[in-house]
C-alpha cells in the first residue's frame, strides 16, 4: 500500500475506531477528549491527501474522466457488484477536509459544553459515526458503496436530533429520518438501474454515461436527482430541513448544514450528472427552474421568519438553490461555482449556527422579537454574527460571493431566454438574501437591549473562540483566494465537462 492509500483508509478508520473508543470509555469528559483527538487525527489524515498522485496534464479524450489522486479498490460483495473502492480527487477533497474540520470543531465544542438530553460521550460517538458516513460518501468511487455510506449517516443523525434537540425534537427527527430515507431508497433503485444496465458499479468506468441507453439514463437521472434533491434539499422537497435544523442541538445543526447537505449536491455532480449526462441535459431546465424557485422562495420565507435558527435554516434552502443552479447549467463555470458555493456555505452556515446557538444559550430564546441590542451587551458576539451574516449574503471578498456570483454568470453564459431569465431572477434572489440578513442584523444587534439580551455578559469562552476562529479565517481565506478550492477542482471539472458534453 502506498502512503496515499494508507491515508485514504485512515480517514475512515480513525473516526470509526474513535467512535468505538469513545463508547467504551466510561468517564464522560475523558471520552469526549478522546473523541476530539480522533477527529483531529482524521483531519490530519485528510489534509495531506492533496499531495502526490496528481498528474498536471489536461484532460484529453480517451482517458477516464475521474482520475483519483489516490485510490483503494478491494472486492467486498461480488454478488451485489459492491467493491470497496475509495478515491479522492479535486471535487471531493475540499469537502473531505471541510467535513473533518467541522467534526473536529463540533467535538471540541462538545468537550466544553454538552447540550441537554444525554451524555456528551454518546453525542461525540454519534458525531464521529456521522463523520464516517459523510466522508465515506465523498470518497466512494463505487455506486453501491456510495449508497451504503449515504445510509450510514441517517440513524446517528436521527439520534443526535432526537436525543439532544429542542422541545419538538422527536417530530423533527422522525421527519428528517423518513424524508431522508425516502431519498435514499430512490438512490438505491437508481443505483441498481445503472448497475443492471451497465454491469458495473465503478464510478470511474461509468462517468460519461459509458454506453447506457438514453432511456436508462433518463430513468436513472430522474431517480438519482430526486434522491439528491431530498438531501440537498431542493424546493419543494425541503420541508424536513427547517424543522431538523431548528430542533437539532448546535453541533447537530452545524454538521447538518455544514456538510450533510453537501452529500446531496456532491452526489448530483459526481453520480447523477457524471453517470447519466444525457439525463442531466434533458432535465437541466427543470432543475434550473426549481433551483431558482428555491432561491426566491427561500429568501422570501426568510424575510418572514421570527426565529434565528429557523431563518438560518431557510437561508440554506436559498444558498443550496444557487449551488443547484450552478450544477444545472452543466458548464465548467457553473460546476466550479457549485463546488465553491458548497464549501463556502459549509463554512459560513456552520459558523452562523454556532453563533445562533451561542445567542440562544445565553438569552434562552431564539425569537427575533425578544432579541435586540446585542452589540450593547455582547459586542464581540454581535460583531462575529455581523461578519458571518455579511459573508453569507455574498459580499465580495468573503467566501459566499464566488458561488452565488458565478452561478448567475454561468446561467447568463448558457444564454437563451430561459437561462437569462433564470440568471436575472437568481440575482434578484441574491438581493433578497442581503435584505433578510440585514433585517436579521438590525433586529438582533441594533436597538436597545431587550430584557433577554440585557442579562448577557460580554465575554466569549475560549472553547467558543477556538471553534469559531478557523471558520472565520476560512471564510476570509476562501473569499480572498478562491483558488484554494478552484485550483484543485479545475482539472477534474474540466474532465467531467469534457465527457458529459460529448
Amino acid at each position, binding site marked *: 500500500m502506498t502512503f496515499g492509500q494508507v491515508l485514504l483508509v485512515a480517514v475512515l478508520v480513525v473516526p470509526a475506531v474513535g467512535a468505538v473508543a469513545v463508547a467504551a470509555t466510561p468517564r464522560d469528559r475523558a471520552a469526549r477528549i478522546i473523541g476530539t483527538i480522533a477527529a483531529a487525527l482524521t483531519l490530519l489524515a485528510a489534509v495531506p491527501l492533496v499531495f502526490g498522485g496528481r498528474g498536471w496534464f489536461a484532460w484529453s479524450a480517451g482517458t477516464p474522466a475521474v482520475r483519483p489522486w489516490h485510490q483503494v479498490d478491494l472486492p467486498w*460483495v461480488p454478488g451485489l457488484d459492491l467493491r470497496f473502492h475509495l478515491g479522492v480527487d479535486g471535487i471531493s477533497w475540499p469537502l473531505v477536509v471541510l467535513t473533518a474540520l467541522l467534526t473536529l470543531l463540533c467535538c471540541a465544542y462538545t468537550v466544553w459544553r454538552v447540550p441537554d438530553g444525554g451524555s456528551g460521550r454518546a453525542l461525540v460517538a454519534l458525531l464521529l459515526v456521522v463523520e464516517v458516513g459523510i466522508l465515506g460518501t465523498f470518497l466512494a468511487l463505487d455506486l453501491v458503496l456510495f449508497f451504503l455510506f449515504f445510509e450510514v449517516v441517517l440513524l446517528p443523525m436521527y439520534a443526535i436530533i432526537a436525543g439532544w434537540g429542542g422541545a419538538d425534537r422527536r417530530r423533527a427527527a422522525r421527519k428528517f429520518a*423518513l424524508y431522508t430515507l425516502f431519498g435514499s431508497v430512490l438512490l438505491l433503485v437508481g443505483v*441498481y438501474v445503472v448497475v443492471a444496465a451497465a454491469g458495473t458499479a465503478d464510478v470511474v468506468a461509468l462517468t460519461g454515461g459509458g454506453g447506457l441507453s438514453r432511456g436508462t439514463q433518463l430513468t436513472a437521472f430522474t431517480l438519482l436527482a430526486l434522491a439528491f434533491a431530498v438531501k440537498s434539499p431542493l424546493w419543494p422537497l425541503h420541508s424536513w430541513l427547517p424543522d431538523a435544523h431548528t430542533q437539532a442541538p448546535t453541533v447537530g445543526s452545524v454538521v447538518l448544514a455544514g456538510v450533510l447537505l453537501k452529500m446531496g449536491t456532491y452526489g448530483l455532480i459526481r453520480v447523477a450528472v457524471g453517470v447519466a449526462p444525457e439525463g442531466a441535459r434533458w432535465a437541466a431546465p427543470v432543475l434550473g427552474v426549481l433551483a431558482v424557485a428555491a432561491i426566491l422562495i427561500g429568501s422570501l420565507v426568510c424575510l418572514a421568519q421570527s426565529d434565528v435558527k429557523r431563518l438560518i435554516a431557510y437561508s440554506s434552502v436559498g444558498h443550496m438553490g444557487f449551488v443547484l443552479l450552478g450544477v444545472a447549467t452543466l458548464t465548467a463555470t457553473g460546476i466550479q461555482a457549485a463546488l465553491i458555493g458548497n464549501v463556502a456555505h459549509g463554512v459560513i452556515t456552520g459558523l452562523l449556527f454556532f453563533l445562533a446557538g451561542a445567542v440562544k444559550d445565553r438569552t434562552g430564546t431564539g425569537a427575533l422579537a425578544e432579541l435586540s441590542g446585542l452589540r450593547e451587551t455582547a459586542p464581540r458576539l454581535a460583531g462575529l454574527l455581523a461578519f458571518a451574516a455579511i459573508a453569507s449574503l455574498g459580499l465580495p471578498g468573503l467566501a459566499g460571493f464566488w458561488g452565488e456570483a458565478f452561478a448567475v454568470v454561468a446561467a447568463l453564459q448558457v444564454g437563451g431566454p430561459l437561462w437569462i431569465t433564470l440568471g436575472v431572477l437568481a440575482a434578484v434572489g441574491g438581493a433578497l438574501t442581503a435584505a433578510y440578513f440585514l433585517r436579521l442584523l438590525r433586529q438582533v444587534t441594533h436597538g436597545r437591549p431587550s430584557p433577554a439580551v440585557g442579562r448577557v455578559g460580554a465575554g466569549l469562552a475560549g472553547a467558543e473562540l477556538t471553534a469559531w476562529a478557523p471558520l472565520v479565517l476560512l471564510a476570509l481565506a476562501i473569499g480572498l483566494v478562491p483558488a484554494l478550492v478552484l485550483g484543485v477542482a479545475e482539472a477534474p471539472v474540466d474532465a467531467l465537462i469534457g465527457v458529459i458534453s460529448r
Partner: protein
Amino acid sequence: MSAVQSVDSVALLPAYLAAGTAVLVLIIDLVVARPRATVAVAALGALATAVGAAVVGAGGERRTFCVGGDCSWVFGGRAAVVAAVVALLTLGVLGLSVPALRAGRSPVGEYAFLLACSMTGGVVLGAAGDLITLIVALETLTLPLYVLVGLRRGSLASAEAAVTFFVVSVVATTVTLLGAALLYAVTGSLHLDRLGALLAERSELRDLPLTSAAGALLLLGLAFKVAAVPFHAWAPATYDGAPLPVAAYLSTASKLGGLVALLAVVQRALPADQTGPVLALLAVLTMTVGNLVALRQRRTVRLLAWSSVAQAGYILAPLGALALAAGRTGEARSAAYAAAVAYTVFFVVLELAAFAGVTALRPVGADGGTLDDLRGAARRHPWRGAALGLALVGLAGLPPGLAGLFAKVTVVRSLLDGGAAWLALVVALNAVIGLAYYLRVTAALWAPTATSGGAAPTVPLGGVVAAVLAVATVTAVVLGFAPQLVLDLAAR
C-alpha cells in the same frame, strides 16, 4: 429389477437425525424425567441435525425414492441450507424457552418433543421432490405448533390463538391438497420436476382452465403458511397469544418452511407466466398492508407480527419479477429464487435476534407486552437494548443493521435485473413506511422512562437466553460485513 427399492440412507441422514431427536427426547423424558436432560438432548439433536445437513449437503446432490427419473427426495444445496437453518432456529428457540420451562409454565418433555417434530418437518421440506412429500412435511412442521401455541398453562389468549391458528391452517392445507389433487387429475403426476416438464412441453395442458385453477389453489394454500395478505389475518392474533419463543419460531422457522414450499412449487412445477402475476400482486399487497397496519400497533409482538407479514412481502417480491417476460429468462429466474432465499436467511437471523431481545427484556414467562413496557429498557440494560435495537434497525434495512440493508439491496437488485423496476420502487417505498414503526420501537428503548409509578424493575437475564441473543446478534453483524456468505449459500 428388484422389487425392493434401494434407499440412500446418507441422503436421508438429516431427516433421521431430526426424527431421532424427537423420539429420543420422548424416551429421555420418560426414563430420566429430568427437565435439564430433556432439553439438553433436544439441543444436541438439533445441533447434530444442523451439522448432518451441512455435511451431507457439502457432498453434492443426492437423490433417493426414485421412480424412473423422478425422485421424491432430492437433498441438494438448498435442502441442506434449509435443513441447517431450521435446525439452528429450533436450537435458538429452545434456548429462549429455557427460563419459561424452568419456571414450569409448560411441560418440558412435550414442549421439546413437539419442537423436535416440527424441526423434522422443516428438514424434510427442503428435500421434498413431490407434492405429497411437500405437503406432509409442511404439515409435520405446522401440526406441533397448534399445540405449542396453546401450551401456556392457564392462559386464555394462548388457547384462543391456538384455535385460530388451527382452523385457518387446516383450511389452508385443504386448499393446498385440492390444488395438488387437481394438478394430478390434469397431468397424472405429482413429482415437481415432472409436473414442470409436462406443463412446459404440452401447452394444451397448460392452457386448461383447470390447470390454472389448480395452480392458483396450490399457491393460495401455501400463501396462508407464509401469512401473505389477504391470507394473513391469523398471524397477529396467533403470535400475540403464543408464548414468546413459539412466536419466534412461527415467524422464523415456520415462515421459512412456507417460503420453501412456495419456492419449490413456483420454481419447479408451475408455469412462471401464470404464477408471476399472482405472486407480484401478493407481494405488493403483503408488504403494503403489513407495513401500514404495523404503524398502528401498540403491542410489541403484534407489531413484530405485522412487520413479519410485511417482510413476507419482501420475500415474495423477487418472485413477482416472474410476471414479466424479462424476469423469466433462465438467469433472471435463478437470480430471483436466490434473492428470495437470501432475503429469508437474513430475515430469520434478524427476526430471531429481535425476539431474543424482547424475551431478554421481559420478565420470565411474560408475553411481549406493550411498547410502553419496553420504554427506557435500553437505559436499564444497555447491552440487551443495543442488541434488540440492532435487530430492529436491521429489519428496517438500515446501517448499522447491515445484514438487513444487504437483504433489501439483494431484493431490489434482483428485481431490476428482472426488469421489474416498478416492483423495486414499491419495495423501496415500503422500506420508508417500515422505518416509521421500527424507529418508534427503537426510540422507545432509549426514551426516558416515565416517572410515574417509580423506577421500572430491572429484569434478570438467564444465561441461555443471553447466549442465544449474543449468537444471533453476532451472526447478524458478521453477515452484515460478509453478506456474500449468504448469497453464495442461497445461489446453490
